[in-house]
């Protein structure tokens, strides 16, 4: 569907060259909601803007349905852009057009007649039928983004680029916008690329994720993989930002105890692995914290357990759990 191959982007100022995106390759399948997460300045926004060439990549190719957008002429590019919707953090609606006229804008550009019908359809999709004749200044942030979404979908694109689309919204509105995006993905089959700095967004709607830092992708895979077994420090940080965590003061020094974070997926919950481990290795397990996360119909459990007992026995218990595909991560005691 979308193949990003070795994309780099350098910005040259008078003094120095700065590479915002370094040799990034990502493959996105049709129907994916692909999240790209990173801190500000990680290059995620620049990368997504390369996809519709709002930013000209310095190197590399991007194939959309097999067509190389980086090799397009201006005319071809404009035609391709009509099939790539985009929504923005600050909505970028036309202030002097009503909701209806804003949604009509891309249709005007494509010279489509019978706009009214399509507009009604889109207003129904984003649940804004009653705001048809309002101006953007009369709308709330969430409503503005709904107009943005309707506008982006007007030309029936196959791809929707979401550049920090919920970052300017409050948590409740964010949730409703994400649900709308999910619905559009499910019902219209629109492939989505979601740029965000919030793990919560990835958790709620994405099935794949790439983590970016310093212009490079440091980790990518299915959200469940990355969520349960983050390998890069930045990824770990993001995962922790949404998982339940122990206050630092709880972590005390004790040689006969070991603090372990245990993560498991829904398929493993039918076996009483923890109690088996306790009995088998003669250790005590004190569950300090526990929580369950939903990720795209998958359930991921998270426990923080304090094992106490003989050192070898604790090792054995942890090893036993790991053998049974439970992910154990040791939490180091504070010095």
């Amino acid at each position, binding site marked *: 569907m979308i193949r990003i191959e070795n994309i780099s982007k350098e910005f040259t100022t008078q003094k120095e060259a700065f590479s915002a995106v370094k040799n990034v390759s990502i493959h996105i399948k049709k129907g994916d909601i692909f999240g790209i997460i990173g801190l500000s300045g990680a290059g995620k926004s620049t990368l997504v803007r390369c996809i519709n060439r709002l930013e000209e990549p310095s190197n590399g190719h991007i194939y959309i349905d097999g067509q190389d957008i980086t090799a397009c002429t201006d005319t071809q590019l404009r035609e391709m852009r*009509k099939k790539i919707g*985009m929504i923005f953090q600050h909505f970028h609606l036309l202030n002097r057009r009503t909701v209806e006229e804003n949604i009509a804008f891309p249709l005007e*550009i494509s010279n489509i007649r019978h706009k009214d019908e399509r507009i009604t359809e889109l207003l129904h999709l984003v649940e804004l039928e009653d705001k048809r004749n309002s101006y953007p200044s009369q709308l709330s942030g969430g409503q503005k983004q709904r107009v943005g979404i309707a506008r982006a979908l007007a030309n029936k694109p196959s791809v929707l680029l979401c550049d920090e689309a919920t970052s300017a919204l409050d948590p409740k509105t964010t949730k409703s916008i994400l649900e709308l995006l999910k619905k559009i993905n499910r019902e219209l089959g629109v492939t989505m690329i979601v740029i965000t700095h919030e793990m919560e967004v990835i958790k709620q709607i994405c099935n794949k994720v790439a983590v970016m830092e310093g212009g490079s992708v440091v980790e990518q895979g299915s959200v469940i993989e990355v969520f349960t077994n983050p390998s890069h420090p930045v990824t770990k940080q993001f995962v922790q930002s949404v998982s339940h965590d122990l206050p630092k003061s709880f972590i005390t020094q004790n040689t006969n105890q070991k603090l372990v974070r245990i993560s498991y997926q829904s398929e493993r919950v039918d076996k009483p692995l923890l109690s088996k481990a306790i009995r088998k290795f003669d250790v005590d397990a004190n569950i300090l914290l526990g929580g369950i996360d939903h990720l795209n119909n998958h359930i991921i459990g998270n426990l923080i357990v304090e094992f106490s007992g003989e050192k070898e026995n604790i090792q054995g218990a942890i090893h036993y759990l790991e053998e049974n595909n439970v992910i154990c991560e040791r939490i180091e005691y504070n010095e």
Partner: protein
Amino acid sequence: MNDAIKLMMDLLPIAMVETLYMVFVSTLVALIVGTPIGVILVISEKGGIQEHISLNQICSTIVNIGRSFPFSILMVAIIPFTRFIVGTSLGTTAAIVPLSIAAIPFVARVIENALKEVDKGIIEAAQAMGATTLQIIIKVLIPEAMPGIVLGITLTVINLIGYSAMAGLVGGGGLGKIADQYGYKRYNTPIMISTIILLVVLVQMIQWLGNTIAKAINKK
């Protein structure tokens, strides 16, 4: 006293119409020629939607040259050109030529400033939707900048009222000519004061009209 009022009634309405005629036509000409220049200044600048640095510099230089002439000097300097266009350098119609020429670079800058106020993100959104440069100019830049453009045109019109009075001193018509010939040269103080009052009222009305329209069409 009656004679003085009669004289005023004879002179002032016609002079008012002449002033409005000069200002209206030269504003129109300046908008027709100046708007494209203002648009070019914005789209061709660095990072503009149709970047073209040398074209930008050429336009900018021409505009600056045009704006460096004091109106009184421009008016006499282009007399041969005025004769070529209108056939004479005297009268109300002839005054339209220097007025237009003075207003073109002014309008170009006014339009440029108004267009620059349009949020870059909105332009980018239009680009992302596959709009052509022309579509962006006509459907995004100019409509979004309209409140600013209206205020800029108001500024231009008021400026031209001032210039048109100046034109009245050297053969142009309108309120400036009456103020000079009757008020100044013949010591007719009532006429002098009347023309001033008329000019003040005219400027106030135009500014009020401009503000009202700009406010009504601003949807921010």
